[in-house]
């Protein structure tokens, strides 16, 4: 037997799993209307590629992935696209989001599937592309695109592939029943994943409260080298970080990824989805959902199409709305309440919990924290929740961060045990949100501070230059006067004359100098505006290449800047005509400069469109790298200059983000190269 490790803390809430395990997985059927949110995963939302009124087949892509960290969405059944609009979705914020609505035609007609008969003979990049194209995103909860997880390879090779069959949340049995009924498929999926990342071991972790699953998985895994690891039941052992510690004894570094310590973790449901995508050519359009709680008469597991309204599944299970006070998507520990039973299930929905009021009563009003320390005993992240609470309540965010607020996984163990029933996690969420806001603000103000400083420096420089010129002229004039005086005409009072000449000259020069500075100003304005237009255009292109959401704003900026440039050039032109100067040649057709800049930008854009994805990826990568280098330099400067900590943090986070972007860009480039 493999040694399993324990993690700090954890709790043993009532499991309530047997209710939904009395019957096998049943098909939920096809509802009349399916609502497909464009963002069911972590990353950029998918982009609709169908039109309202269009007929779609089951399995057809209706929205395409819009970036590297993104997955497409498929039609779960055949029918007609009846709307592309904002609908209420299941999200902790309770907001609406863009969705594609499909009205079923009842035919459930598949598009042609293209299974891979022998995946060993297929290129790995192709397999990865298929996984991505199948729209698979982590089905355990977070919804991180599976293909991305498999692509982002760290320096260290992956030693361990872990399939998560823990399912530690009370009530939920979707993975449990999947392991019982489709053990073979899970193993096949595991083998495909293992083929892709070539780990030295493949482990499937299951809590010891699922004997049937363990038995089924052990049978299926026989002879495959895949090891089923059983460990004691304790919430939240199914948390990725906790599971990794249980199975390997190692901890994922704070702020890092499992891959940093050579581990990749996938949910068993995702393994099945991968298997279906490769061996059957089917995209992710359905999943197993546990429908349970005392407000449904027949708690059970349903195989439901993605986009099925919760109300439809609840009806199937015998929903008694009168008994139900709150409707939870997910489990009682980490799930969130939904505002309405009509919100659709998504790829990450593993459970619909409809508890009766007696089952999960509303929490009693919070009493003061008595610092009993039960929360610290329960915290799987080894935090001091009572201190975090104290700081969050007092808005001492710096201290909260010192106490590692951001290592809180929001598992709810602390709130569960708190005798004063303080909604601790709620405080942490709020505090995190505020800290993030503060960071962003700091970044923004740092930005404008830098801009201000640059402008200030430029002004000073200009001032100094002018001063120097003036001084030089003055000196020259005096020199001349002196010479004139020396060789002066004897009849005249040479000194007097020289002084007068010098005076006259000085006066002329002074007025001339002013004129010059006016001209200089205008010229500079033209030059800087032109420069700004150029950077704005490049930024715009970069944004377009990246598919950033700022494209519109940037476009506006470019338009405005070119207008300004035109104005500046006109002013310069007018001035030059009014004050002709032989020294300065009038710039040729200044009015056209703005036009030219615009045309340049447009041409660049067109060229861009003509470029291959590989070139594009390479270019954007180069740009990103340049930006990264610049910010790194700036950070170093800041550190050397001992700047305020706030600013350093802001800079660090910028660098960090850029690094991530560069990494993503590299991966994208690699992908582009391979296809």
């Amino acid at each position: 037997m493999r040694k399993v490790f324990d993690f700090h803390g954890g709790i043993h809430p009532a499991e309530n799993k047997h209710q939904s395990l009395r019957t096998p997985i049943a098909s939920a059927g096809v509802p009349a209307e399916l609502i497909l949110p464009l963002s069911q995963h972590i990353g950029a939302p998918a982009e609709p590629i169908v039109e309202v009124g269009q007929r779609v087949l089951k399995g057809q892509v209706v929205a395409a992935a819009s970036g590297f960290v993104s997955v497409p969405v498929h039609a779960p059944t055949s029918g007609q696209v009846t709307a592309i609009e904002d609908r209420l979705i299941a999200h902790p914020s309770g907001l609406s989001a863009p969705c594609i609505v499909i009205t079923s035609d009842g035919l459930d007609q598949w598009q042609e599937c293209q299974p891979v008969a022998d995946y060993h003979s297929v290129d790995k990049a192709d397999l990865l592309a298929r996984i991505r194209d199948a729209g698979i995103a982590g089905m355990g909860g977070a919804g991180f695109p599976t293909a991305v997880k498999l692509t982002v390879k760290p320096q260290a090779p992956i030693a361990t592939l872990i399939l998560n069959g823990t399912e530690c949340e009370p009530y939920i049995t979707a993975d449990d029943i999947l392991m019982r009924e489709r053990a073979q498929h899970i193993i096949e999926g595991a083998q495909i994943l293992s083929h892709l990342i070539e780990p030295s071991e493949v482990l499937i972790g299951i809590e010891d409260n699922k004997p049937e699953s363990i038995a089924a998985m052990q049978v299926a895994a026989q002879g495959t080298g895949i090891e089923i690891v059983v460990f004691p039941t304790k919430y939240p052992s199914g948390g990725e970080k906790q599971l990794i510690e249980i199975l390997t004894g190692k901890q994922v570094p704070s702020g890092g990824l499992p891959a940093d310590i050579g581990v990749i973790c996938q949910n068993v449901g995702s393994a099945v989805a991968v298997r279906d995508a490769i061996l059957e050519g089917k995209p992710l359009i359905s999943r197993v959902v546990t429908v349970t709680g005392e407000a449904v008469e027949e708690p059970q597991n349903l195989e439901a199409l993605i986009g099925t309204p919760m109300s439809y599944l609840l009806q199937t299970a015998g929903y008694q709305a009168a008994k139900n006070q709150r409707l939870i998507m997910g489990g009682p520990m980490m799930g969130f309440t939904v505002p309405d039973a009509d919100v659709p299930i998504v790829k990450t929905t593993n459970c619909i919990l409809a508890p009766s009021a007696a089952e999960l009563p509303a929490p009693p009003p919070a009493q003061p924290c008595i610092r009993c320390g039960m929360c610290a005993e329960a915290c799987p992240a080894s935090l001091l929740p009572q201190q975090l609470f104290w700081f969050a309540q007092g808005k001492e965010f710096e201290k909260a961060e010192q106490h590692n607020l951001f290592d809180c996984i929001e598992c709810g163990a602390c709130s569960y045990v708190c005798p004063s029933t303080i909604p601790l996690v709620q405080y942490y969420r709020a505090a995190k949100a505020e800290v993030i806001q503060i960071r962003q603000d700091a970044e923004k103000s740092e930005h404008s501070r830098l801009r201000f400083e640059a402008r200030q420096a430029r002004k000073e420089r200009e001032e100094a230059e002018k001063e120097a010129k003036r001084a030089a002229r003055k000196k020259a004039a005096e020199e001349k006067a002196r010479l004139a005086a020396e060789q002066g005409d004897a009849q005249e009072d040479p000194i007097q004359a020289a002084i007068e000449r010098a005076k006259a000259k000085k006066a002329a020069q002074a007025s001339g100098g002013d004129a010059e500075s006016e001209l200089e100003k205008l010229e500079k304005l033209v030059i800087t505006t032109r420069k700004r237009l150029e950077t704005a255009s490049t930024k715009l292109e970069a944004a377009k290449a990246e598919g950033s959401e700022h494209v519109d704003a940037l476009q506006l900026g470019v338009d405005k800047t070119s207008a300004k440039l035109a104005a500046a050039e006109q002013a310069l032109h007018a001035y030059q005509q009014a004050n002709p100067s032989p020294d300065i040649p009038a710039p040729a057709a200044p009015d056209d400069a703005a036009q030219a800049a615009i045309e340049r930008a447009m041409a660049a854009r067109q060229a861009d469109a003509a470029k291959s994805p590989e070139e594009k990826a390479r270019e954007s990568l180069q740009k990103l790298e340049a930006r990264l280098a610049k910010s790194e330099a700036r950070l170093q400067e800041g550190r050397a200059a001992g700047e305020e900590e706030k600013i350093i943090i802001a800079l660090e986070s910028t660098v960090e983000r850029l690094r991530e972007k560069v990494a993503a860009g590299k991966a994208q480039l690699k992908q582009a190269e391979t296809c």
Partner: protein
Amino acid sequence: MSLMRITSPHAHGPSRTSRVMQQVLLATLPGVIVLTHFFGFGTLVNIFWAGILAVAFEALALKLRKRPLGFYLGDYSALVTAVLLGIALPPYSPWWLIAVGIASAILLAKHLYGGLGYNPFNPAMVGYVVLLISFPVQMTSWAPPRGAGELPGLIDALQACFLPASFDGVTMATPLDLLKQNDSLLMEDLWQANPQFGRWGGLGWEWASIAFLAGGLWLLYQRVFTWHAPLSMLATLTLMAALFYDGGSSASGGSPLFHLLSGATMFGAFFIVTDPVSSAVSVRGRLIYGALIGLLVYLIRIFGNYPDAVAFAVLIMNLAAPFIDQYTQPRTYGHARQGGDR
């Protein structure tokens, strides 16, 4: 139908603050019974009067602070303070002494700092120390235990409390006093010469201590607190006593067992040191907190001016608790151990 919107977690464990407090109250019962057996009704009258005053002061404070009475009175914390102070005070204390003690505990130590959970000092110990400093005579006159003198009856006890002027009780030095004042007798002879000494510690005290230990172990079993602070306090005290015992000469500091079973050691270890509000929070913090209390108790008992020391030791460490917290933050998941103590 309108659905409730609450953030996770939706499930909640059975633990409640008011229940914790009730358990603490329950756990003092064996000790109180033994004290009553050995010292008469004095302790019970103390507790009874302290309880009434505590609830009254708590209600007054809540009213002044415009807090809902029922909700906060329901946490039983005032009652716990009253019972603890009632046990700590000498039996047959006059009513005004208890009143001053409770007023200091509830108004000064608790509500002035913001009420339950915000008090840096243990309220009962603040009350005790205020009294000890202001009324040293009353605070150090203990009734003789059963077997060393006559026990007053219930009426006498009530009279002692409410009509103190007409009560003429007998008092005796406590074993800890005797030990402190002793500089000529061998331990053995000291034991022989004074009826206040029992088998291992003070007569009566030793059994009360064992009863408090039993109550404490039950609380431990109920997971009301963890073993860290009490155990490390007792261990340090034992260690110190063992170091300075020297076999029982006239200069001896007393045997480890004597220290464990005399004065407020056990009561303090399981009912005062474990007060979560005013102690350190992390596991390592609580080990240090307890150990330093044990050390201070011994030092004050042997070298200080006051015969017993739990109250002072606890208050001093209450003061130090935030610093201990600062240096004993546990290592968070995924964070490297940072050079030694973090």
